[in-house]
């Protein structure tokens, strides 16, 4: 972390640079969503646009975390804390996947085909 006056002066320049990069990428993320010739994938919003939008957002967020929040040179304790929360955060995302095995919604599936497959409609016997 910047502690000497010289180091802080240097860091301030970096903060401005990062701020500008964030501004630019905000414009980029709006542009890929609104300008027709920057439209990836199919016409209009689709999964490719979602991936690109989220990639830009992740890139911006990692800049904020690493530079503004000084995570690029932090102590081990904090990395450990964040590792746990990151794992938990990811687990949270997949928790909703349990809906796939909801016995009310998908319980009438054939044995061995536990996940709902719309191309293989379930016929009752």
């Amino acid at each position: 972390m910047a502690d000497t006056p010289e180091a802080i002066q240097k860091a301030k320049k970096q903060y401005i640079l990062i701020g500008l990069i964030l501004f630019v990428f905000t414009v980029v993320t709006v542009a890929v969503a609104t300008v027709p010739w920057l439209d990836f994938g199919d016409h209009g919003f689709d999964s490719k646009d979602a991936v690109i939008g989220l990639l830009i957002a992740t890139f911006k967020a990692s800049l904020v975390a690493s530079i503004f929040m000084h995570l690029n040179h932090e102590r081990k304790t904090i990395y450990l804390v964040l590792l746990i929360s990151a794992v938990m955060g990811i687990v949270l995302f997949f928790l909703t996947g349990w809906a796939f095995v909801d016995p009310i919604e998908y319980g009438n599936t054939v044995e061995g085909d536990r996940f709902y497959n719309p191309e293989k409609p379930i016929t009752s016997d």
Partner: protein
Amino acid sequence: MEIPYTVTARKDTGLFNSKVGIWLFLASEVMLFGGLFSGYVFLRIYADYPWPERALPIVPGLINTFVLIGSSVTVVFAWAALKMREWRKFQIYMGITIACAAIFMVLKGIEYKAKLEHQAVRMDDFAIIEGHAHYAVVGDDGKISHADTKTKAKKLSDSGAKPFKANAILFKPQTIDFSVARAHQPWVEAVLEQAAKRKSKLVTAEDLFLYGSIRDYAGTEQEPLSSKGRTNSEAELVAKYANAEEKAGHTFGERSLYIPAGTELSYDLVKQAREVYVSGRSHNAVARTAILKANWKKVKAARPEDKYWEQAPDARIDSATQLDEQFDSEGNCISGSKVVSVVSTLSFQMSPPQPIVIDRGWVKRPVKAQEGKAELRDDTSFNAGSAGDSAPGLLSSPLILAVDAIDFRWMAQKAEEAGKEPLEVIEKSWIFSEENKHAKYYKRIWKNHKARIAELEKELLEGYGRDKEGNAKRVPTETDRYRITWQDLVHYARVDQHEGRPPKPSDKEYADLRPKFWDGFAGPNHKDEEIHELHAFPELEIPHQKVSLQSMFTPKWNTYYAVYFTITGLHGLHVIGGAIVLGYYLFFSKGLYRRNPEWLANRVEVGGLFWHFVDLVWIFLFPILYLM
């Protein structure tokens, strides 16, 4: 108490304590917002209706992104200034940060306001109509007239009737039944106010006896036993009490009420009745427990050798027979000696019957003309008179809108599910039918829309060509085809009313007439003069029975707005909380700065970490909610 390691680092962690604290807190925040984002993804993937993608106005969100990123830079500069011991600079940077928080919240407020004022209607054929509700007044003749603003609506009535949102229900009742327990004061008073304004009275039709405790059932004649509202003379009453008490073998409770026929409705009356009701219910609870106990004792005495579960089938402890009590169909004891019959509704006659404006948010479920009644969520019931009466019940009270978007996506989805051609179903729907007196506007809009989409299809084919199987590589989306946005409406109105020859979709001029994404700022602007002159947002009267759901853009409308308000609301609270903490450093920390500047710098660093986190959440929120 001296808190250790506020300035210097602990040897084992290499960190000052509050930094460990804030990171632990932020770690829990990651999971909090992570859960909400996960909820968003889930709701979106499994939505059973067309998700409103890219539905929010981009400009306020974009400005807010700039504002938050900018404030992230200034807060880190404020920290750097403290490290360099430059108090003045710290003040400036921190001041800018807090100003940014204020700008963010103001923009958020503008956005929220636009949502909360925006009327949306789902019709029974799954057409979605969005717009601004007109204002209506009920004239002296009991008929409804409307205008697009409140001021204009006010001028429509000579007698100074109050304008209301033209999404209300107009009901002309013969009687109104109020639930003693649940009648909601503002609604009762609103009904009273309207009745008074239309020179009508609400009075009880027959004598009502409300008993709050033991009364006499022995005689066939039921006498008022209250000191409240009684009409009998003192002497008569004393005699009656004496007589009744003697007959029943007990004394009467105080809390009883006699409401003679012809008593006018007031909320006070409802409140008095409620006291009696509560008293009666609690009396009955006590009495019933006593009866049950006594009965159970009898059962046990009759079969002392049996266990209780063996006795149970025979133990008709709740039965009336054992106490010579008789119950009416509602389970109230009507004769016997212990339990009082509780009056739960007060019925008032409206004379003469006059229309009452019922807010659409008050009703329990959609009001159907043939049911002859409107039920409110507080169990109030408006009842129509018999056929041919002057109180027909539900009056024509259409939902009148200035329409700024029409969405056929859900209708198209339903049509496809049923194996029908979406376009056919749409074109046969109510909005284009002769039943809709404004159909010609909408036919014109639809014609323009189809022409534009045809041109778009052509352009996409020319621009991107076909794939190996001969299908166009890019085609207009469902949203393009079936959703007519406010930009479309303005665009088509400009084209139609263009000076000289209206441009064709293939002309360059045609595209130039289209509103840009920054127009309207926080959504369609109904006060815009150009839009007004063009009549770009045409009006529509949706008959009551065609509406299957109506709401503002609130969580009630769909899961999209539910998750939108939840996440952005929680984020907004974080902005406010962060600004308060940073404001504390700015305005109340000069003393600490003089005493121990390093400590303040550490505090600002910790507050700044929280602020960056708020920015970081927004960096994800902006594309997810506004651009996807």
